[in-house]
């Protein structure tokens, strides 16, 4: 079965610093989703990547999927306290994007010190 490993498990950065979170899959990623979760809240959809080499950006967050489609990275530029939370990567285990039982990593907890 497919597994997603996220690194680091937790991260503390000073406001204004850049950071990167990684998500590595044991199998080919047919769809890779990044979500953010704050304590007591649900998951907020950030970005979806499907093609090898694909890169998407939204505000100060950039997500990339490597050419082999087994690793994704999430990069935050000039971090702000509002970026704090748990970042989760999720993957579609089936070719063609079934969007059924997404598999998730355990998350990366990000804290941003003002």
């Amino acid at each position, binding site marked *: 079965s497919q597994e997603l490993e996220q690194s680091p498990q937790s991260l503390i950065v000073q406001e204004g610093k850049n950071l990167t979170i990684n998500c590595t899959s044991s199998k080919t990623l047919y769809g890779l989703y990044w*979500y953010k979760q704050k304590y*007591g*809240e649900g*998951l907020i*959809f950030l970005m979806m990547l499907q093609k090898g080499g694909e890169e998407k950006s939204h505000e100060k967050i950039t997500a990339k999927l490597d050419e082999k489609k087994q690793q994704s990275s999430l990069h935050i530029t000039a971090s702000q306290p509002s970026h704090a939370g748990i970042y989760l990567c999720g993957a579609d285990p089936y070719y063609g994007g079934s*969007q*059924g*039982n*997404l598999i*998730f990593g355990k998350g990366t907890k990000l804290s941003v010190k003002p």
Partner: protein
Amino acid sequence: GAGVSQSPSNKVTEKGKDVELRCDPISGHTALYWYRQRLGQGLEFLIYFQGNSAPDKSGLPSDRFSAERTGESVSTLTIQRTQQEDSAVYLCASSYRVYSNQPQHFGDGTRLSIL
């Protein structure tokens, strides 16, 4: 509503009791999913519904867990004879439909605590 709505937001109950969790998906979304998030763990898929098709129950951990959905509207997740290991946040998500390459949108979850 604008987003996925779940109720109750918190539920505390005694071991052995039955609980029912409710999810109201985004209007127009035909696919609905239930996940469980235990403390320190990732999300575990439980079940999904796609329109009027038979649900995919492959993630339900035991026969104490069941879920229903009427048409393309509200879903209820029922846990019978609750055990302490059932304590978790239960998250519901919906999407336009399965096979649509559209992301799943999540509710805020129900935090279930079994005493």
